[in-house]
């Protein structure tokens, strides 16, 4: 695997739209070709090299390309958007849309990400070693096809609207989450190791939520069923199982309605 290293040298006025910072756009290119790729500030088109020192070189394919981005990227949007393979390491905070519509490969952010990371994600992995903003792993506006596959892991907290319209894949939050989790979800798994506020699983059709900490307000559409023992991915303990959202439509299997499941650890 070849490595391209980008180090930000000029901070943009306003924000930099850098959807070209992906292994896909870099693959097969030398440093100077990468530096010539387009970035945007508002209506102005610039080159990546106007803002970043580019060193190293890309592999022949995305899979053989690793991109390391250094410096303060908190005003850079779209890092890793639509990437299909390879690796991106961001050694900073990053702005919106990290790994949005990502299909494969891996993004590691050694900092925080702003909203809309992993929007419409189809595959691959995002690891955030800080906090994540709102709408992590959610669908784009209007789309009923949210996160389909892949995995998102956040060491810290996540914002509101986590996993909206989620259909598959997995999201693990090390800390706490804000309101609205897995709204309209039809599948997938969300693990919250800290506390949750309210509106978990609203209008949820299918899928699973695990909460190891507290929930401020449980949705009225979730009904307690039973206590169960769970052991998975290093989580072990007794959980209260709730099913819901009772107000929502649900698929049937063998004449039985299949509800979404919410597990809350007992005695957390």
């Amino acid at each position, binding site marked *: 695997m070849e490595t391209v290293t980008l180090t930000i040298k000029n901070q943009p006025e306003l924000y930099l739209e850098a959807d070209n910072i992906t292994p896909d756009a870099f693959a097969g290119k030398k440093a100077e070709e990468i530096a010539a790729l387009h970035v945007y500030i508002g209506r102005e088109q610039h080159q990546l090299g106007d803002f970043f020192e580019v060193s190293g070189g890309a592999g022949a394919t995305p899979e053989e390309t690793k991109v390391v981005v250094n410096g303060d990227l908190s005003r850079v949007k779209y890092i890793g958007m639509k990437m299909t393979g390879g690796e991106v390491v961001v050694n900073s905070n990053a702005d919106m849309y990290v790994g949005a519509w990502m299909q494969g490969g891996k993004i590691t952010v050694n900092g925080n990400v702003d909203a809309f990371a992993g929007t419409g994600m189809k595959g691959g992995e995002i690891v955030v070693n800080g906090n994540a903003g709102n709408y992590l792993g959610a669908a*784009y*506006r*209007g*789309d*009923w096809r949210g996160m389909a596959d892949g995995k998102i892991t956040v060491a810290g907290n996540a914002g509101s609207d986590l996993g909206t319209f989620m259909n598959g894949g997995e999201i693990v939050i090390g800390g706490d989450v804000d309101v609205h989790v897995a709204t309209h979800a039809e599948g997938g798994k969300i693990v919250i190791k800290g506390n949750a506020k309210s509106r978990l699983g609203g209008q949820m059709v299918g899928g699973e939520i695990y909460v190891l900490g507290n929930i401020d307000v449980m949705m009225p559409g979730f009904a307690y069923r039973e206590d169960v023992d769970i052991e998975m991915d290093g989580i072990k303990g007794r959980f209260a199982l709730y099913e819901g959202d009772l107000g929502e*439509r649900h698929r049937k299997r063998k004449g039985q309605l299949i509800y979404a499941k919410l597990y809350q650890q007992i005695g957390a």
Partner: protein
Amino acid sequence: MAEYLIKNGFVFDPVLGIKGDAADIAIKDGKIVETSAVKNPKVIDAAGKTVMAGGVDVHAHVAGPKVNIGRNFRPEDKLFGYKPKNGIERMQGGFSVPTTIRTGYDYARMGYTTVMEAAMPPLYARHTHEEMRDTPILDQGAYPVFGNNWFVLEYLKNHEIENTAAYIAWLLRATKGYAVKVVNPGGTEAWAWGLNCENIHDPVPYFDITPAQIVKGLIEANEYLGLPHSMHIHANNLGTPGNYQTTLDTFKLSEGIKPNSKFGRDQVMHHTHVQFHSYGGEGFNFESKAPEIMDYVNTHDNITIDLGCVTLDETTTMTADGPFEHHLTELNHLKWANADVELETAAGVVPFVYSANNKANAVQWCIGLELALLAKDFTRVFLTTDHPNAGPFIRYPRIMKWLMSEEARKQQFDAFKHKDKVIDATNLAGIDRELDLYEIAQMTRAGPAKSLGLAHMYGGLAPGLEADVAVFDFNPNEPYAPDDIEKAFSNAEHLFKAGVQVVRDHNIASNGNKRTLWVNAKVNENPQVMRDVKEKFLRYYTVTLNNYEVTGHYLPNPYVIEVDATQ
């Protein structure tokens, strides 16, 4: 205005009866003229290319409230597909429900120059006209819907044809409408209570009238007025397995009524998107009844139809058939918009994904093509997708490919997940017919123009007609792959609209001088109808009568078709 001479193209023109012979077409002052009439024309070398009149779309949902609901509630329909502004082209977005700007340009790119908006809710006529005004290049008109209108229901309950006609004339003028459109007659009024009319004899709640009475009465009123287009219907029971019987019953309502039109049409009923109305069987055993439907159409020249071909795309369904859209959202669980309109109509909008992996969708695809391939008279059978219901209009060239190439159809059959079951439920696999470009020109130009009563303007290349001329980079006399058809007809090389070159070398060259067509029918003074109008506005409408009529700047370039029905 510049003169043009389009030289040596292979011309397909049903009006002149030219079936692919090389010929020259001359343009002067916005009209087609004899080649001898141009003195110093700009010459377009069309040798080895196909030349046709501008396309005429008799039925598409391209402007107005439900179309805009479709746009605004589907941001995902525009994701990543936007076309940036470029020179004179403004930015263009949307796949299944394009922006007005894209609508105009994309039709032009296919060589189309006239497009009719198929359903205008009268109360929203202003909105429809605003959108048409902002749709470049195309000549357009809109059909106000009548089949669930309280005035119509009350007059036709007692078979008051003259009053119905007077009301139609008034509403066409108030809304600047083009034709009488009927959608799910009675069923949409029933939907205001959450109900439906499932066949032509199913009575409308409260109003004590049946769909059959509504349809027959509106045909009679249409002929009383002698409007350019016939009554244009989307029958009851759309989309339901077994519905072909309702369709045949509806067709039969046209029997025995003679066309009365000075505009050259020979039919009294246009039935739209017949694909959705040609289903046999029930539930999962849903099957094609295209042969039964086409047997009727082929032997009864009182009607015209359009296809409503399924294109196997993700699209956005939208119709004044409110109960149908509710049914659809119950099936696919996708977002559902509904808009009931006081005293007049309703509309529903639901996204839909037609998939080659879905047996029912594949059967629908077959039926649309079967209707065309079983047709005998292509001046009465028109190519549409009921845009965007069965697929976006930008797929017309793909449908041409399927109609013109058995090989292309075979390729599609091979892509079906349930190929064998689909073949069992349909007839298409056994049809080897391949249409030619002359038949395509009938289906997309001469036929629809005649049916609209606009054969004196559109649909052909005879001197005196509007200079709407398309040149396609397609040589029918050289070997070609099926995909070459789609490619060529998606991307006209040149297009003239009323003598203005709007596409040059495959690029948009002008925004044209779009016109809005409407029909001004004069009738005898009818105090009763005017009294009824006043009363309904006073008591039941929420806008005043004086704020209802569409005027002035909503139609910056109107083209009025005058009809005298005074007696």
